[in-house]
């Protein structure tokens, strides 16, 4: 019986872990290129969920089909937001801390705006796949005679996992094989040098901001597959998980965040199986604090930031 619980935890862990990985990865693209820690990331994600919700309720567009729209819209928003917010930051006394505060302000505005439009209640996203659930594994007579144990996953979650896996592959390919991706990685490693090489740091940074926003939007849509209800106040919890992931994986280290995200998802989901929920939630923070004191550069990061 415990095996079934454990297996369920594992499957859940991979599904949530992939989402966390994506969240961490996009946060780290920003953090690496711009030295900006996006406090509003959770709100971007929720906004992504809401956009797909709106498209679904107004036009009956299936969330999978809304993905390209969300991607493009969020990329443009992020791109514009960069020019609106970031260049001025460089002039402040402590750009890193200021960026955190700045994005905190943005997050407050986004929460308020979403609360105003959608009101405080939690919206259910109503769409379904056929069949609703997939049974991955059946263990016969697990609970006694004739009562089989099953590892069951909602189809929507499997689809989410599929999309996530695809995104992660595309993202890795983008970062390691394409010119822009390589430029972004170069900027993470050495911001000064890249300007000398003749790359326009502003348009590159704006693209990175756009990319991170687009990823957040997609995460929002995918999140609605996994947890089909949207809470305008839920962003902060998501951001917090994102921070845990990027600190675990190393600040400004996209691939580190991918690994840390999946690990964290597994630990969290397995912990929910065996511990009370609040304790399982605290586990994340305890891991975070331990890692910060034992290995402040993160699991795979080098000490890149000062």
């Amino acid at each position, binding site marked *: 019986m415990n095996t079934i619980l454990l297996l369920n935890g594992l499957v859940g862990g991979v599904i949530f872990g992939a989402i966390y990985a994506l969240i961490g990865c996009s946060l780290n693209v920003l*953090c690496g290129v711009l030295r900006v*820690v996006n406090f509003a990331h959770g709100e971007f994600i929720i906004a992504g969920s809401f956009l797909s919700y709106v498209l679904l309720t107004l036009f009956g567009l299936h969330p999978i089909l809304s993905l390209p729209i969300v991607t493009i819209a969020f990329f443009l928003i992020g791109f514009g937001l960069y020019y609106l*917010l970031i260049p*001025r*930051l460089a002039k*402040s*006394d*402590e750009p*890193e*801390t*200021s*960026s*955190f*505060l*700045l994005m*905190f*302000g*943005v*997050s*407050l*505005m*986004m*929460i*308020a*705006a979403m*609360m*105003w439009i959608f009101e405080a209640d939690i919206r259910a996203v109503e769409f379904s796949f056929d069949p609703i659930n997939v049974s991955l594994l059946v263990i016969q007579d697990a609970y006694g005679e004739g009562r089989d144990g099953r590892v069951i996953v909602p189809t929507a979650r499997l689809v989410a996992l599929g999309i996530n896996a695809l995104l992660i592959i595309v993202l890795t390919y983008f970062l390691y094989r394409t010119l822009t991706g390589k430029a972004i990685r170069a900027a993470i490693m050495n911001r000064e040098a890249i300007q000398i090489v003749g790359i326009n740091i502003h348009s590159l940074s704006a693209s990175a901001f756009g990319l991170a926003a687009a990823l957040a939007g997609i995460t929002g849509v995918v999140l609605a597959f996994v947890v089909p209800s949207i809470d305008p106040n839920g962003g*902060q919890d998501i951001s*917090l998980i994102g*921070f*845990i992931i990027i*600190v675990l994986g190393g*600040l400004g280290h996209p691939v580190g965040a991918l690994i840390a995200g999946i690990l964290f998802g597994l630990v969290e989901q397995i912990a929910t199986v065996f511990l*009370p929920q*609040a*304790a399982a*939630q*605290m586990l994340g*923070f*305890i891991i*975070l*604090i331990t890692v*910060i*004191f034992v290995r*402040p550069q993160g699991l795979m990061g080098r000490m890149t*930031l*000062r």
Partner: protein
Amino acid sequence: MAKSGTIKPDDFSEEISAQRLKSSLWYTIITVLILSCFLVPLQDGNLSFMFSLMMWVTLATGINFIAGFTGYMPFGYVAFYGIGTYVTAILVKVLGVSEYLAVPAAGLSGILLALLFAPTLRLNGIFFAIVSLSLAVVCQRLMSLLPEEITGGSHGLNLGVATDRTHGYYAMLIIMFVALVSASWLGQSRLGKALKAIRDDPDAADAMGIHVSRVRLYAWIMSAFFAALAGGAQAWFTGALDPITAFDVLITAKTVIYAMAGGLGTIIGPVVGTVTLVWIDEIVWQQFPVLNNFLLGLIITLLILFMPRGVVGSLMQHFPHLRKYIM
């Protein structure tokens, strides 16, 4: 030794009189503030509003010790406030201790928590901010996880009629007074100078013989102490608390905004910023409850982008002769 002889002979006495001018201006402001707060209950004024004004002044002054003087931005500042409310409420409700003892005990608990969190001061910049925020969330979750008989779980505690609002009000007044006096002492002390040096360049201050981690710890403890006291007075005054509101990130946010709007690192700034914004909040924003947080966010964003040193700080930056008057 070659002396160019440009030094004015009475330089130091000039400096002293400049200091006096600054302090007298500052103490005038404090006196006006304290007096008007003192008189409110006697005249049946808006007690709740004045209470929250005093609380925010205390918090903004408190966060200034660490954020303004050492450059550390504790995103989980609310942890100290929250622990103060809880310690007071538990002592009063569960152990039957008098409020007069419970609130100072809350202050001590703030100091203890600050010592517990002191290792986080080794981190810098964004790491510190993230960890501090997480610690506040940990405190919040912990309070709702503890047995209901102690913390009241997720419902919190209700002190009911056990507490006297007016007494809580005057407790807050005293706490605010002590906070402001401490701030003015710090502003002129050598400790304050050392702290500002650390804020501007910790490594250089270290190389100049300043024990950076110890000095910073003093500021951290002062910061925590006043937040916890403010939390304690809040529990006394309102008589009810729950984990969500006691550890709300918005409390940190407002504290930071008020302090920053006035000018972190100056003594007067956080007071000016708080009084102005809390009034605006009362008069204007309450008309638009939905937009309240939106405006809050907008103000943070605008402040960071256009006036990171706040009103007082920018004035001092652009009009150097004002430095003579501003503490």
